[in-house]
Structures are given as structure tokens and as C-alpha cells.
């Protein structure tokens, strides 16, 4: 396993897109140390940022340190494993299409932006635009699974197309906005404007029902079979069992009627009476 230990905290943004199993595996330690990363407005050797240890024979990288100011760790990775003990930085796992990213701490904005495969597992809270899209782009998450064991800020799953985004805690405002597919699961409450512009995607809320689904219409109370498969998938990925996915039923709202109305928002209910 390749070990990268942050030498000291860095306040300016660091473009760390080179730090991905795809890029590093098979390189010698010297080659890795000489890779260039952008710190603020200058290019420096990776060895100035990280102390490099271990070897890169196996597709596994462990990063130690607070990477709050980092961007694009694990970007476009297609296989292997990236383990971060500390903050995961912004745009972690952006455009990844395979492999596994584990963060034993929080993650910043743009987590898993435009990812199309693989798994990202964040141990604590995540920032804005997770499973969403990068500036200037038009498609959010297109596959894979993102797990957030804490809360997520605004715009989670914005414009997502496929895959699973599961947030154990709360999600901020505009969760699932303009999503065209995929499944957004929120374990607790949600902010306002949930599912604005929703078309085809599914938003499942296990916590308190949100206010004002103004452009949604009540379908009925069901227990969709696919939620059982989703629950099994999440548990296989290492997510703690969500009891509410295994019982009760779901008040189902169809919408956003102003945007085609093919999406669905499901609220967990203990019984089938309409709330």
C-alpha cells in the first residue's frame, strides 16, 4: 500500500488530481515524489506536500492528514482503493468510474461530482453539491454509490442521472433538484425546495416530512419492492442498516409537475394513513 502523509497543513487550494490509484500504481517512489501538484498558483513536487511511504505495487493509497484545502483527490479513478484519514477535501472522487474511496472524516463540496461508478464512503458530514455536477457541466452523478454517514449541505444530488446517493443524516435545501434519474436517500430531515425540477429520479426520505412540495401530487401509500434491493445494496456497501427501509410504508408524491412530473418523492410512514 502507498502511504501519503501530509507534511503540514496547507491553507491555499491544492489541485491533487494526480493522487489517484490510476495515476500512481506501478510508479516507483521516486517517480511519485516528482509528480507535480498545483499548490495555490505554483507547481510543486508531490514530495513537498506529502511524505511518500510504502510502495505502489498494490492499487491502494492511504492518505493521512487534513486535506480540507485539497481538490480532486481520486479524480477519475477507475479501480483500486483510496483511503483518507482526515478531511477528504473538495471534489473528492469527481468523475470516478470505479474503485472505492473511504474517508474517515468529513468531505467538502462536490463530493463524487459526475461520478459514474464505484463507491465513495464518507464517515462524517459532506459539503454542498455532492453527487452533483461541476461548474460549467450539465450532468450530475451518473452511476455508482455515494454514502455519507453524517449530514449533507445544500444541492445534494443536483442533476443526478443514475446511481445511489445515501445520506444518513439531514440534507440541506434543494436536495435532488433537477435530478433526471438515480436514487437519493435521506435518513433524516431535509431542507426546503426538495426535488425542485425533479424528473424521473426517486427521493426517499426516512425522517420528518418536509414542507411545501407545491408542484407534487400525492399518488398513494406504497411499499416499493425496489427499496428492499436498495437496502441490501447499502448494507453490502457497509452502510448501517436503516430500519425504516425494512418496515412501514411510503407516502408517494409524483412530480415535479412543472418539469414533466415523472419523478417521485417517498416519505416513510409507520402506517398507510395519509399525513
Amino acid at each position, binding site marked *: 500500500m502507498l502511504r501519503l502523509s501530509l507534511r503540514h497543513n496547507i491553507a491555499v487550494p491544492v489541485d491533487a488530481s494526480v493522487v489517484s490509484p490510476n495515476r500512481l500504481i506501478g510508479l516507483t517512489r521516486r517517480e511519485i515524489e516528482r509528480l507535480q501538484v498545483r499548490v495555490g498558483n505554483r507547481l510543486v513536487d508531490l514530495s513537498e506536500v506529502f511524505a511518500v511511504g510504502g510502495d505502489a505495487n498494490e492499487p491502494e493509497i492511504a492518505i493521512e492528514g487534513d486535506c480540507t484545502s485539497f481538490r480532486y483527490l481520486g479524480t477519475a479513478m477507475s479501480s483500486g482503493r483510496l483511503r483518507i484519514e482526515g478531511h477528504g477535501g473538495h471534489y473528492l472522487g469527481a468523475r470516478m468510474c470505479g474503485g472505492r474511496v473511504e474517508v474517515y472524516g468529513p468531505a467538502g463540496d462536490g463530493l463524487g461530482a459526475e461520478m459514474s*461508478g464505484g463507491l465513495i464512503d464518507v464517515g462524517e458530514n459532506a459539503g454542498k453539491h455532492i453527487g452533483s455536477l461541476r461548474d460549467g457541466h450539465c450532468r450530475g452523478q451518473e452511476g*455508482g454509490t455515494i454514502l455519507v454517514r453524517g449530514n449533507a449541505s445544500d444541492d445534494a444530488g443536483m442533476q443526478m442521472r*443514475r*446511481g445511489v446517493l445515501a445520506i444518513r443524516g439531514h440534507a440541506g435545501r434543494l436536495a435532488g433538484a433537477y435530478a433526471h434519474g438515480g436514487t437519493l436517500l435521506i435518513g433524516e430531515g431535509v431542507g426546503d425546495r426538495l426535488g425542485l425540477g425533479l424528473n424521473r429520479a426517486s427521493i426517499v426520505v426516512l425522517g420528518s416530512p418536509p414542507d411545501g412540495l407545491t408542484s407534487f401530487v400525492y399518488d398513494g401509500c406504497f411499499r416499493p*419492492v425496489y427499496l428492499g*434491493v436498495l*437496502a441490501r*445494496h447499502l448494507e453490502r456497501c457497509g452502510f448501517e442498516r436503516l430500519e425504516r427501509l425494512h418496515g412501514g410504508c411510503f407516502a408517494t408524491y409524483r412530480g415535479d409537475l412543472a418539469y414533466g412530473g415523472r419523478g417521485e418523492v417517498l416519505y416513510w410512514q409507520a402506517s398507510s394513513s395519509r399525513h
Partner: protein
Amino acid sequence: MLTIRGVEIEDTFAEAFAMRATALVITADSAKWAHIAAQTATGYGTSIIGCDAEAGIDQVLGGEQTPDGRPGVRVLFFSINREELGKAILNRIGQCVLTCPTAACYSDVLGEGDDLLPLGNKLRFFGDGFQSSKLFGGRRLWRIPVMDGEFVCDQTAGSIKGVAGGNFLIMAEDQTSGLQAAERAAEAIAGCPDVVTPFPGGICRSGSKVGSRYAGLKASCNEAYCPTLRNLAPSALPSTVNATYEIIVDGLTLPAVENALAAGIRAACQPGVARVGAGNYGGKLGPYNIGLHEALANHPVPAART
């Protein structure tokens, strides 16, 4: 001479052949409806001689063993090639599981490329544009609207090269003791993993030979094992035998079939059974010759389900 509880086991072999196979898990809100769906989907699936597929129930599954956490049943299907198997499961799942209250259907065999059989990717058209899909970790599911909610099934089903036609013959002194022995054998095989016994109750009374004196008939009665023809045609039956039952086993792998045959033979060796033999065509029909003695030696204890 090998005997088990006084029953002679002939030193012969069962001739089995390769067939394309798949395993599906059918789930429902209750074990009752999962079983109904599975039974219906595997109905009329005894022999490829006259059916589109050979099919049967492999295992009853608890909620913790199924993809959606509901009670389920694992069913196996076998057909001559991938195309025929694909057609068979599409028709059977479309007519028998999609229509069954609360039922859902999932692939239980991994496959890729040419090994994949169509399933949800064809059945989805029943949704007439209202169908939708979900992608969970590489598993694509189709949600097809039906009148009690949604029918959910995998996009495709994997298929593998299976083994069909593993068999043994229970030659008994009378019909009653022969049937009891055959029932015990079928029961023992039901506990073996990755196999099915596609005939009614797992038992076949009309073991056949290839061809017929009538043109166009692919199979006809195996007169050598029919007790009423003992004096009209060459007979393979000892003089004490008055009823013969055949147990036919299809499985996902050769060891699974061997294990099931060994378990079945042991269970069948009961009072009233004179001999246990096997059907073969001199090794000309199939690539797998399963020696009864070898199967019993290789599987002294039936393999347990995992």
C-alpha cells in the same frame, strides 16, 4: 458387488449432457406467493423432448437470502442453448411471475456478454412507456407498473453451462415400495444444492429411449424397463422387479449432479427395492458419464447448502 442396505447398485453410469442453465430467485410478500409464482413458472418443464425448458424449484429462501429481503424461491431452468433458454424464461417469467401478486424476479447466476439472457430489458415493454429503471451498484432493475404496484426484475439473467439428464433407476418388487423409495430419493435430492428434479414430484415413470418405430417421434417407451413387456421385448429387469421409477437430476455443475445422485440413491435403498441402475446410451449421447459407484464414493456425505 456394491450394495446399500441389501440393495444392489449396478456398476453402470448415468449419461448426462450439457445444457444452458440459469438460476432465478422469485420473491413475494409472503412465502406462499413466492412458492405459487415459482411453481407456476416452472410448470410444464419436465423434459426438453416436449417442453421449452426443464425447470424446477431448487431451494426455498428466507428473507435474509434474497435480493429484496422478502421470502423467495430459487428456481433453475435448463434448455438446449442460450437462445432457447432466453425465450423460455422470458415467456415463463412474463406469464407466470409478472402476473403473480406481489412477485419479483432476480438473476442468481453471474454472467456477462454472451452469457446474458434477456429479462427485464424485454419485459419492461409491458410498462408501455411507464416503466422505469434503477441502478444499484451495477445491478439494473426494471420497475414495471402493475395493478398492485410494481413488478421488479433484473435487466438480464446470467447463464452457465449446466448438466442435465443425470439419472438413476429404482427397480422395485412392487409399485408401492418403488414409489415410496422414489419419494424418499426425491426428498433427499431436494435438500441438495444447485439441482432440480424436473419431473412430477421429482419422479419419472416413463423413462424413454431415443427414437421410435413411428416417424417423427423423438422418444418412445423404454421397453427394457417396462415390466408388462417383459415377455414381448428384451428386458433389463430382474424377475423380481415389477415397477421401475427413474429419478432425473439437472444441475448447475457436474459435482452438484453427482452429489444429488449419491444422496438420492442412498435414500432409495429401502426394503422392497431390488436394484438401482441408471439410464445410458452406451456413452454415445452425452459427454458426462456419471458412474453410480464413483458418485457414491466421491460423495459419501451429501454436500450441504451454503
